[in-house]
């Protein structure tokens, strides 16, 4: 038993503590946090390689044997999520060098950011439901802090609504935990898989499943529970928007996938049928909502919702191919979405606004920025050969395989409508001539910051690689789907070899 699975959690916590020590030395904070996130990337890559080569890694914290203590478990799904988290953390911390001023650094920006990363990794790696709740709280507290860090009016407005609805979701989550414990007497997820099969009262179990579905649905932003998301995600500084957009809803999706493939699989036609309807409506409302707005980051926020719909669709169809599609979609989406938020910040830096009406002429003044926007934007829309195309292709094929023609049609239509939104941003911000009334902002003198270009290019490069060589990424996603559809592998890894 090695301590590797716990490192992605402990390392950011340590870095958070160190940056707190240097809270009055902004430059040192940047360096420490950057070095820390680079190390984090290394540790996560080690864990990823170990899992891909040797299979599932588990660790019993404090050597308490499995159903009694807290188990950390890194299967393929977990390590994919942890790996992308580390990549995003590194990119965003690079980017914050260009954006986050010393006032925010002194308020603890890097401390909160690292705690957020620790919380997210903890949620991905834990094998215990109550521990999952604790990591959710760690992550939420950090995200609350980050969201209001700039102390702007609109941040307080968005922040209050974000906090309210997320606290409610947390309360639902813990009520669900209480009820599930009352029914089964265990909270270890592998043990739960066995214990729910012996529950005498399936109606109460289904109700509990619905409570969990609502709780994670709020976090993930599925229909009709997504309204907090577009209120809050466009309010904080761009680096914070990007990390929240890239990570937080996906933790909800991850928890949903984990529980509804491992624990709540006793009444698939009901639970997953509900998820299917919700997924399709989520996709449609998200993309239509985006079409109504003209602010860069609000459009992107609505697209998070529609993309979450695709991931839930993969879970709802519940075939190996569909789950592989969902996992691949998450992998592709986290990178692309965080990158688009970062680019919105870059566009604001070189032209002074997030409003599409006031943007323009970026293609002429900064062709490289235009190119960097083009890759993730049209990957999001699903243009071949970018990563989003493969993700959508797999999901559409999976829907057709089990004759879910409605879902397949929705996936294709939403892809087209996404193209509409992305073309809107492209046309307004990049192609159209610069509107005359914004002339007092001197575009020619504004050059993009290297600390902005570096992470954006890195993420865009990753998107290109995933798009051009999708096979290895799909193979890992398929392996993850194989483990998800065969829960006994997970159960044996936790309970078997102790």
């Amino acid at each position: 038993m090695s301590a590797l699975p716990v490192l992605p959690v402990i390392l950011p916590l340590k870095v958070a503590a160190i940056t707190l020590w240097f809270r009055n030395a902004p430059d040192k904070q940047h360096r420490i946090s950057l070095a820390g996130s680079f190390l984090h990337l290394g540790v996560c890559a080690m864990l990823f390689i170990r899992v891909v080569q040797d299979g599932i890694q588990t660790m019993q914290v404090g050597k308490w044997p499995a159903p009694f203590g807290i188990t950390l478990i890194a299967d393929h799904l977990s390590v994919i999520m942890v790996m992308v988290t580390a990549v995003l953390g590194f990119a965003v911390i690079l980017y914050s060098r260009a954006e986050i001023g010393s006032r925010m650094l002194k308020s603890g920006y890097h401390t909160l950011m690292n705690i957020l990363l620790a919380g997210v990794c903890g949620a991905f790696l834990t094998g215990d439901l109550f521990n999952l709740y604790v990591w959710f709280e760690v992550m939420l507290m950090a995200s609350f802090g980050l969201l209001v860090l700039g102390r702007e009016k609109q941040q307080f407005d968005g922040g209050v609504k974000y906090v309210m609805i997320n606290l409610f979701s947390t309360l639902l989550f813990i009520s669900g935990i209480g009820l599930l414990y009352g029914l089964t007497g265990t909270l270890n997820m592998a043990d739960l898989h066995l214990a729910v099969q012996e529950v005498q009262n399936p109606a109460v179990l289904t109700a509990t499943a619905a409570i969990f579905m609502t709780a994670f649905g709020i976090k993930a932003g599925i229909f009709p529970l997504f309204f907090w998301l577009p209120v809050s995600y466009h309010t904080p500084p761009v680096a914070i928007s990007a990390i929240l957009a890239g990570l937080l809803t996906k933790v909800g999706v991850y928890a949903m996938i984990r529980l509804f493939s491992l624990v709540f699989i006793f009444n698939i036609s009901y639970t997953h049928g509900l998820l299917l309807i919700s997924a399709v409506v989520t996709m449609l409302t998200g993309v239509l909502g985006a079409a109504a707005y003209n602010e860069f980051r609000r459009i992107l926020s609505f697209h998070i919702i529609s993309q979450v719909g695709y991931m839930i669709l993969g879970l709802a169809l519940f075939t190996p191919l569909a789950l592989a599609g969902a996992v691949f979609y998450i992998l592709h989406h986290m990178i692309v979405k965080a990158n688009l938020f970062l680019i919105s910040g870059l566009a604001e830096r070189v032209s002074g606004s997030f409003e599409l009406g006031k943007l323009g002429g970026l293609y002429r003044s900064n062709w490289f920025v235009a190119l960097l926007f083009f890759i993730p934007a049209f990957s999001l829309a699903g243009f071949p050969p970018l990563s989003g195309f493969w993700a959508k292709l797999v999901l559409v094929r999976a829907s057709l395989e089990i004759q879910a023609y409605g879902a397949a049609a929705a996936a294709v239509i939403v892809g087209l409508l996404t193209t509409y939104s992305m073309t809107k941003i492209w046309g307004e911000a990049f192609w159209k001539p610069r509107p005359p009334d914004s002339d007092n902002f001197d575009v020619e003198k504004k050059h993009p910051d290297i600390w902005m270009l570096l992470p954006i290019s890195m993420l865009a490069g990753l998107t290109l690689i995933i798009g051009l060589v999708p096979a290895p990424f799909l193979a890992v996603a398929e392996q993850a789907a194989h483990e998800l559809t065969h829960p006994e592998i997970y159960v044996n890894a936790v309970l078997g070899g102790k």
Partner: protein
Amino acid sequence: MGVDMETALAFICGIIAAASIYLMLSGNLIRFIFGLVLATNAVNLLIFVSGRLSQTQPPLIAKDAVVPTEPLANALPQALILTAIVIGFALLTFVFILFYRTYQSLGTVDTESMRIAEPREDDGEDAANSGVNPDKPQQQEGA
């Protein structure tokens, strides 16, 4: 006795939860805080009842024995509640400060009149920007 007590506590849980949801939905930040406090207590009570109520011994092992004597009390729900209370307390403190700062900044505790992050359509895009970028008044035309 245990069963009756469980039923009674289940009803109390439900009543507290209903009251808390009523308070939370009232659209006033102060009431929301009270609703949150009540909801946290309702959930803690729920976990407590889920662990079953019984008249039992503490789970301690006598000096000369290897296993504890039955019937035992289940200590786990109490550990869960304790964790939930601590986390809930931290969240509550944060919410207090956040709401206070929000009141200082926005001058209202009524959620209906908080429209800065999400301006109404009939206010137009310009109103959105005056909230978004108060320090850049030159950009408020021509959206």
